[in-house]
C-alpha cells in the first residue's frame, strides 16, 4: 500500500478542467496519474472525462493523451501497444511505454464491451480503467448496464408504474476475469491508497489488467457535491461496492466489511434513489438490498471469506 508521502507532488492531471464540482472521476484521474511509473500514454473513451478535460485548445493532461471514439478505447490501446512492439523490434523505438485506457461505464459495460473483450483475449500489455458513475452522464444521465436496480435515470425514470431501472448491474470483473487475464480489481476513490496501489499493480502486470472503480457523480447520482468521497466510502461500507482483486484467477477481498452500515444510508444521500422510499416501492428497495447481499456473499465466497 502506498503512503501519502510516497506520492509524487507533480500533477499530471491538472486543474482547470470542466468536470462538475465534486466529480469523482476528476479525483480518480488525478489519483491515477500519481501511480505512473514511466512513459505513459492515456487513451480516453468519449464521456465526461474526455469532453471536460480537453476542450481545444486546452488540456488537463501532462501525459500524452488520445481520444478516438466512444466504444473503442481498448482497440486503440491495442494498436498503440502493438506499434511500439514492432518499432522496438526494428530499432526505431527503445523505451517501454505504459498504455492506460480509460472509459466510463457506458464505454465499458455496453458499447465498448466487444473491443474490451477482444483486447483482453489478445493479451495486449495495457491497463484498462473503467470509472463507473453508473450511467451515461455525458449525454445527460441515461441508464447503462452498470446502473443499479431501481436507480432513476432519464431513460429509466422513476415512473408511476416502473420505478427506475428494472434490471440489475452486470458483473464486469467476472466478465474480465473470465478472459484469464492476470489482474482485475475493483476500487473506490475513498480508499485512495488501495486504488493507487492497484493502478501501479495493473501497470506492472505483463499483459492486460482491468480496474473497475466507483465514481461518484453529483450531477447524475444527484448528491451533494461535497459528499462525493463520503458516498464512495459508504458504497464500500454498506457492501454495495465490494473492493477486491482477482490475481491469476484468485479472488482476494481487499476491504473487509464485518459490520456493514445500512444500505439506506448510502441510498438516501442520492436523489436517484429517492422514489424507492415511497411505501409502494418498498419491494424495490428490498430487491436492491437482496442483490447487494447476494453479490456480497458471492464475492466473499470467491475470496474464500466467511461473513
Amino acid at each position, binding site marked *: 500500500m502506498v503512503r501519502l508521502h510516497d506520492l509524487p507532488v507533480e500533477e499530471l492531471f491538472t486543474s482547470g478542467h470542466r468536470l462538475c464540482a465534486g466529480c469523482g472521476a476528476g479525483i480518480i484521474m488525478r489519483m491515477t496519474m500519481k501511480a505512473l511509473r514511466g512513459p505513459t500514454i492515456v487513451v480516453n473513451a468519449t464521456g465526461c472525462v474526455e469532453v471536460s478535460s*480537453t476542450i481545444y485548445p486546452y488540456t488537463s493532461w501532462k501525459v500524452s493523451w*488520445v481520444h478516438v471514439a466512444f466504444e473503442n478505447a481498448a*482497440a486503440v490501446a491495442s494498436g498503440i501497444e502493438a506499434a511500439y512492439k514492432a518499432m522496438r523490434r526494428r530499432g526505431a523505438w527503445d*523505451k517501454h511505454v505504459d498504455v492506460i485506457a480509460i472509459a466510463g461505464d457506458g464505454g465499458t459495460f455496453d458499447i465498448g464491451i466487444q*473491443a474490451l473483450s477482444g483486447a483482453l483475449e489478445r493479451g495486449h500489455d495495457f491497463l484498462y480503467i473503467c470509472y463507473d458513475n453508473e450511467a451515461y452522464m455525458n449525454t445527460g444521465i441515461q441508464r447503462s448496464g452498470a446502473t443499479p436496480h431501481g436507480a432513476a435515470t432519464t431513460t429509466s425514470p422513476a415512473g408511476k408504474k416502473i420505478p427506475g431501472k428494472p434490471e440489475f448491474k452486470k458483473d464486469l470483473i467476472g466478465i474480465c476475469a473470465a478472459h484469464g487475464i492476470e489482474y482485475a480489481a475493483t476500487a473506490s476513490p475513498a480508499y485512495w491508497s488501495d486504488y493507487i496501489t492497484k493502478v501501479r499493480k495493473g501497470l506492472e502486470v505483463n499483459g492486460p489488467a482491468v480496474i473497475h472503480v466507483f465514481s461518484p457523480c453529483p450531477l447524475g447520482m444527484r448528491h451533494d457535491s461535497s459528499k462525493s468521497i463520503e458516498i464512495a466510502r459508504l458504497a464500500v461500507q454498506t457492501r454495495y461496492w465490494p473492493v477486491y482483486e482477482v490475481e491469476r484467477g484468485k479472488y482476494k477481498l481487499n476491504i473487509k466489511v464485518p459490520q456493514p452500515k445500512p444500505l439506506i444510508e448510502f441510498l438516501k444521500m442520492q436523489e436517484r434513489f429517492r422514489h424507492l422510499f415511497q411505501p409502494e416501492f418498498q419491494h424495490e428497495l428490498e430487491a436492491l438490498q437482496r442483490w447487494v447481499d447476494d453479490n456480497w456473499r458471492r464475492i466473499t465466497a470467491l475470496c474464500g471469506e466467511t461473513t
Partner: protein
Amino acid sequence: MARLMGLTGNEAIAYAVKQCNVDVVAAYPITPQTIMVEVISEYVHNGEINAEFICVESEHSAMSACVGASLTGARVFTATASQGLALMHEMLYIASGLRCPIVMGVANRALSAPINIHGDHSDMMGSRDCGWIQIYAENAQEAYDWIIQAFKIAEDPRVLLPVSVNIDGFILSHSMEGVSVLDDEDVLSFLPPRKPVITVDPDKPITVGALCLPDYYFEIKFQQIQALKEAYNVIREVNREYEKLTGRRYDFVDSYAMDDADAAIVCLGSTAGTAKAVARWLRSEGKKVGVVKPWVYRPFPEEELIKALGDVKALAVLDKACSFGAPFNALCSDIIATLYRYGKDIKVFNCLYGLGGRDITPNDLKAIFNDALEIAKTGIVKEYMKFIGVRE
C-alpha cells in the same frame, strides 16, 4: 531487377504491403478481401516481416487499432470490404480527421441487404466523403503499384491522410495475373521508413483528439480540405518518381484513345479494361470512341479529367454503386459538376451497372458506346439514366 510473379489482386496487395515494411496490420476477414489478411498472417508467422498483426475482433476495432498505431508514428495497413468497411465508417472519418496516414486495401463488394459477396462499389462509394484519398486499380499490377505509392503519398508531411486502394471484388481480388514486382531494396529506396511529424511520444506529451467546439472545429476541417488539395501535388510527384523507378506511368486519370474521340465511357476500376478492349474493336470499325478512367477518385481530378475529355461530345458515365434517390449516381454527379464548373457542354448520361457482381459484357459496353455516339451526333439525350443488364 523486377520479377514477374503470378498473383491475384489480393496477393499483389499483400506482397506490396510486405515490401513496404509495415509495422502494424490490424484487420478482420471478409470476402473477397480475406486472402489479403491470410497472406499477411503467413508472412508474419513465417517471420518474413517485422509487423505486428492484430487479429482484431471486428473491423471497427481494426480501424481503431490502426488509428492508435498510426499515431505512434508506425506504418500501418488494413484491408476490408463491404460490411466491414460499413462497420468502420465511423472510424474512417476519425482516421482522416486525426491525420493518420493509414493505407487500406479494399476488395470492393456489394452491401447487404440482400447479402451478396460479389463486387460492386457500394462499399467505398458509401464512404466517399470520409476524407480519405481514394484510388481505384484496373488490375493486379496497378493494385501492387498503387499500394507502394499510397504509403509515400499518405505519409508525406504535406498530406498526412489515409489512402484506400480499391480493387473489384473477385474480378481483381481473385484473378491471377502476371505482376511485375520490384526488388525489396528498390521499394525501400523509394519508400524509406516513415518519418512521422508529430506522434504521441510520451516524452513530448500531446493531446490528440480533443473536443473542438464551433470556435475551432471548422478550421481543423478546413486544414483537412487543404491537405487533400496539397495531396494533388504530392500524388503527381510520387507518380513521376515511381515512373522513373518502374517505367510504369501513373496519373490522376488514365485515358485511352481519347485524342479524337467523339464519345467516351468514364468508369472506375476493372471495367475500364473491358471498355478499352471494346473501344479498340469499335475503332477498327472506324468509330471514334475512347475510355477515361480516374485512377484517383478523391481528391477528384477535375483538371486532369477536363484535359482527358478533350473535345469529346458525349459521355457515358458508368457507376457501380447506386446513390438511391439522387439525380445521378456518385461518379456521374462528380463528372457533371466538373463539366459545369469548366463550362463544358458535353452531353452526359449515367449507366448504373454491375450491382451485386452482375457482369457487364463487351456487348453491353458496345451498346453503351453506340448510344453515346448517337448522342454525339444528335446532341439529344433521351435517357439520362440507364440500368445495364437488369431485368425490369
